[in-house]
């Protein structure tokens, strides 16, 4: 390894300025540690620049137009025109505000910021190469390192993100005009969120998914309202198909998909095993089949840090890799690859590094899919409760019975809670419906605190709110619901 002329020393080196990395750096700074954060690209990482925030901005904005367009029932007649370039500008403004906020917060908490790509030289130093021509590089020595280099979209054979009609999720969040048609490969959460955005913008959306259902990570009762809505939005689905290649048609492209063996041999539905190749003519194709860890710029070997067979960096409950003084957090450390997981790990590991009695020991990890309607889950599923050896007691409340839901015109879906029958402790919850993402806050707190069904059902909730549904679902498990029938 070439050693540069400049050598900096830092107690704690954080590599990567996404939610995991900046949270770790800020918390370390708050704890009085000498901390340096290296980021090669943009503060805020995937989440702020090309992930959570831009996607939610577009989802919310397209909903404003879509809601008004479909509110005749409420006595509202509107035909909004959407200027996608204008919407993307607005979204970029939101992103800028947040990323510059992250930068300010880092500085205010005493974090030294360094721009460049960090590569391990050995167990106690990295080389940071600065971006532009002739910007050179420098060596940084550390006592402890925290790897937070995140993830990137997976490319599949036949679809190169460098080609113009082939979009990654990042590209799909910055289009300048609404495509007439869009094929989306992958019906996971990213694909389904963007399917909703473009369908509402008027694009003819077709989704190709290898497995035989959308959002395969979620149980059917949760995905059913989303499926119904997707149909209303005119989104077409081809389940059990793998996209294999695309062809240039001059004024558009043709996406070719083959029956996915996996689905077929699995005994998929009739629809899923249609024998033949399908051809879908479209303007663009978005590939959203998953994300993989980013470690290629790091030279982990030089530091002796091991990865697993998928490239993730395994860690223990203090976020330590196999090398004790090198930690890994966020997407690069494996599932669940979610921003809030990364932030929690970042804060926790910063505390560990500062010698505090911290550990990664949550009871309740939330997850949200911002489809229409939203899906939100926290803690254990009914099956997991059973597998863990508890007797599951389930309570449910349909939004059709919620006054607040009806006043918003969105009453599909339900809140479901799962508890241990004997003790009444809440172990998990799931919601599909309006503001599911926000209702999860209370449900997560309840699981995390070890609240019982009775605790939740006898806490007064303001009327009329959707959050009453949380209380009613808990009461339903106890056969005490007022606004829905008990079992």
């Amino acid at each position, binding site marked *: 390894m070439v050693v540069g002329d400049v050598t900096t020393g830092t107690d704690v080196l954080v590599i990567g300025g996404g939610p995991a990395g900046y949270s770790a750096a800020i918390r370390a700074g708050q704890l*009085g540690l000498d901390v340096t954060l290296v980021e090669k690209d943009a503060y805020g990482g995937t989440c702020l620049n090309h992930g959570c925030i831009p996607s939610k901005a577009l989802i919310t904005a397209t909903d404003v137009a879509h809601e008004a367009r479909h509110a005749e029932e409420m006595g509202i007649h509107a035909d909004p025109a959407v200027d996608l370039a204008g919407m993307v500008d607005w979204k970029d403004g939101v992103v800028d505000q947040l990323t510059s906020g992250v930068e300010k917060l880092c500085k205010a908490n005493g974090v030294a910021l360094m721009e460049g790509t960090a590569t391990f030289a050995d167990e106690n130093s990295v080389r940071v190469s600065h971006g532009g021509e002739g910007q050179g590089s420098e060596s940084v020595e550390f006592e402890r390192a925290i790897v937070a280099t995140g993830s990137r979209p997976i490319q599949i054979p036949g679809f190169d993100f460098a080609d113009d009609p082939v979009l990654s999720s990042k590209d799909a969040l910055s289009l300048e005009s609404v495509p007439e048609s869009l094929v989306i490969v992958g019906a996971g959460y990213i694909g389904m969120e963007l399917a909703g955005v473009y369908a509402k913008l008027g694009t003819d959306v077709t989704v190709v998914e290898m497995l035989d259902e959308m959002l395969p990570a979620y149980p059917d009762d949760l995905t059913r309202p989303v499926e119904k809505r997707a149909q209303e939005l005119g989104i077409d689905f081809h389940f059990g198909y793998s996209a294999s290649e695309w062809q240039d048609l001059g004024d558009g492209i043709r996406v070719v998909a083959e029956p996915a063996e996996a689905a077929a041999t699995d005994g998929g539905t009739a629809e899923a095993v249609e024998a033949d190749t399908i051809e879908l003519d479209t303007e663009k194709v978005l590939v959203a089949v998953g994300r993989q860890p980013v470690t290629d710029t790091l030279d982990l070997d030089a530091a002796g840090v091991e990865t697993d067979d998928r490239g993730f960096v395994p860690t223990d409950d203090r976020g330590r890799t196999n090398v004790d003084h090198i930690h890994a957090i966020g997407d690069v450390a494996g599932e669940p690859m979610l921003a809030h997981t990364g932030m929690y790990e970042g804060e926790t590991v910063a505390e560990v590094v500062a*010698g505090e009695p*911290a550990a990664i020991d949550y*009871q309740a990890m939330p997850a949200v899919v911002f489809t229409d309607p939203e899906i939100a889950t926290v803690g254990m599923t009914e099956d997991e409760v059973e597998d863990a050896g508890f007797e599951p007691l389930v309570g449910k409340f349909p939004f059709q019975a919620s006054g607040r839901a009806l006043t918003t015109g969105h009453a599909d879906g339900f809140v479901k809670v799962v508890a241990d029958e004997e003790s009444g*402790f809440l172990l998990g919850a799931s919601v599909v419906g309006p503001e599911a993402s926000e209702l999860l806050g209370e449900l997560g707190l309840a699981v*995390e605190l070890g609240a019982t069904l*009775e605790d939740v059902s006898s806490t007064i909730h303001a009327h009329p709110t959707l959050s009453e549904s949380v209380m009613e679902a808990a009461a339903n498990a106890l056969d005490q619901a007022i606004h829905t029938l008990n079992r």
Partner: protein
Amino acid sequence: SGDAETPSGHVFAPPSVRRLARELGVAIETVEGTGPSGRITDGDVRAAAQSDAQREPDVESETDEPTDSATAGADAEPETDDDPGGDDAATAATQAAYARGAATAQVE
């Protein structure tokens, strides 16, 4: 049931209590909960730490942090600003005042 041991090892204690257990070197899975439905309270953890201390006087060394000399600098000292046992009674009393479930909710 009042028994803290659950089939899965899932712990019924709020985050503040779980952190206290780490701070005091108490294995929380072994603590008997006296809160509503057997929830583990900070008082339970402190009591467990006390009885551990009686059995194993060197409990301090169990606070498992590898408070690495590597961390160097002023902050290597673990922040145990909470004086264990000191405000025990006061905290327990305040908690009792708020854990209303304990007082009125035991329907059976």
